[in-house]
């Protein structure tokens, strides 16, 4: 697997984002844009989660806490007025950096554990955050919720700014993911994921790269949370810090392929519409969750490492088999390699 900027990769990314960008311009039903906003939002969340959960192999189940913190940070900053409606988007990087820094001690403590224990520690963090959101009523409004001032956008294109903001965040998350995998950060993270103890033993700056991945991942998720709060306009603790959002990001990355650039995106574009479809066809009952789970189970059974890695594995094996056959044919004509040659 060579990680180069290939022309094919650039074209793929270009076509994908161009398609996303022109959808609202072409028009179409309102529900489509609404669905796309949440699909792209989950793609951005899942791609951000993937920086830590996929690349470093630390499966955080608490990431929605950063989403909620970002959402509240945004809502509290813009509860009074949002001016022309566009300038609040410019505050998002500040929220992202602040939450990224805030996440460092949390990452430092939680990443002293690994794997399943790490998952449980991060879940605990999620519930602490949710409890705080409920109980710090002076700041968050508690169960009463917190509201964001409504932007003065044209009703006909009201959703557009939120949609494009989500697209920008997805592009940034994918850009970081791509950059990581091409730099020594990504190489170091791969060693952490494969064998952290051995990584220490060859001088990898393990703690540093883990914290970088954690903070960047948390900061990105917080920015998505900010846009979400702005779009929704009114946030409650149980929805801003909703375990289902965490589960969503994790499942989508698992489904598409952890640690890959496009896996989380693919997972989101399958699961979010599927979820909406089932929710609609099964009405108000919770049955849709069963159907959702069934889809997931089937894919996990047949493609346990996720869709993209399974496919690329299969391609690689086929190619290797073809290569092996060619080499065998060659070996029959050439002399066999003697032990002396191996030794020399």
């Amino acid at each position, binding site marked *: 697997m060579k990680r180069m900027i290939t022309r094919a990769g650039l074209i793929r990314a270009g076509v994908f984002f161009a398609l996303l960008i022109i959808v609202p311009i072409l028009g179409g039903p309102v529900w489509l844009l609404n669905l796309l906003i949440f699909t792209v939002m989950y793609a951005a969340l899942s791609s951000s989660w993937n920086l830590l959960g996929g690349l470093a192999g630390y499966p955080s189940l608490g990431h929605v806490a950063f989403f909620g913190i970002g959402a509240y940070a945004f809502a509290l900053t813009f509860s009074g007025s949002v001016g022309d409606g566009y300038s609040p988007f410019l505050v998002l990087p500040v929220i992202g950096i602040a939450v990224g820094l805030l996440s460092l001690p949390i990452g430092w403590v939680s990443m002293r554990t690994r794997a399943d224990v790490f998952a449980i520690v991060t879940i605990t963090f999620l519930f602490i955050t949710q409890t705080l959101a409920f109980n710090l009523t002076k700041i968050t409004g508690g169960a009463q919720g917190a509201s964001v001032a409504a932007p003065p956008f044209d009703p006909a294109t009201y959703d557009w700014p939120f949609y494009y903001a989500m697209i920008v965040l997805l592009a940034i998350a994918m850009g970081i993911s791509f950059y990581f995998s091409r730099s*020594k950060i990504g*190489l170091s993270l791969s*060693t952490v994921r494969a064998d952290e103890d051995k990584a220490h*033993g060859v001088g990898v700056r393990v703690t540093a790269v883990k914290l970088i991945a954690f903070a960047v991942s948390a900061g990105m998720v917080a920015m998505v949370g900010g846009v979400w709060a702005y779009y929704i306009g009114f946030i409650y603790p149980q929805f801003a810090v909703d375990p289902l959002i965490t589960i969503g990001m994790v499942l989508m990355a698992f489904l598409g392929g952890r640690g890959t650039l496009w896996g989380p995106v693919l997972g989101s574009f399958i699961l979010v519409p599927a979820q909406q479809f089932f929710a609609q066809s099964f009405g108000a009952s919770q049955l849709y969750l069963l159907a959702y789970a069934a889809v997931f189970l089937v894919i996990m059974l047949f493609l346990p490492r996720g869709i993209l890695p399974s496919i690329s594995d299969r391609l690689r094996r086929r190619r290797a088999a073809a290569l092996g056959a060619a080499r065998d044919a060659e070996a029959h004509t050439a002399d066999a390699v003697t032990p002396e040659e191996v030794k020399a």
Partner: protein
Amino acid sequence: MSAILLEVDHLTKRFGGVTAVNECSFEVQEGSITALIGPNGSGKTTAFNMITGYLKADSGHIRFRGDLIERPRPADLYRRGLSRTFQQARIFPELSVEENLVIAAGYSWRQLFGRRVSRADQDRARQILAEFRLESLLELPAADLSYGQRKLLEFAAVLMSNPKLVLLDEPTAGVNPVMIDTMERHIRERNAAGVTFLIVEHDMQLVMRLCDPVIVLDQGSKIAFGTPLEVQSDPLVLEAYLGG
């Protein structure tokens, strides 16, 4: 020229009621190929793990290049020039052979944000692979290597950082005879180039022709030290190996 490179001073480790390493002291002279031998369970690997910072000693300490190492940590020691291999050839199977070498070469903070594999990295990796005659494997995923090749790769990787002292934990266990010769040759070559070795090894023929001095552990304590010939005829050693 015979400075002490590594000094192990009264190292002790207990696991519950078992004392795996008991007040163990020894020295490794710079430029030597020192062997650490002993029957199964005599505490060789435990001693290795404490020296390299993988296991916290209950008491005792180590000095490396004259410095007392207060809290041995693998990454720190690696940067100071002390590196090790593992009994079970631990490499990163998902990475390519080249990447396995590159990551072990160490990097500065600036390089951390730079290219995954730079041109200079490539040159270093190619150079060492040429030395090990493994050039053809450069781009393969390390998962595709045979066990012997993995051992060689792990060995080559720890050399990437130009270490002063390399601890090899059973470098020839489970590899074919040809590969044992190859491994021996590389150890000799590197030793001639100034690298000191401390080797845990069960192949006594190899130990006797390659190593000097030899340290013998039994039940966590040093029971003998000397040239291979001296150790071979030591009654304590014979008793430890043959039982008494």
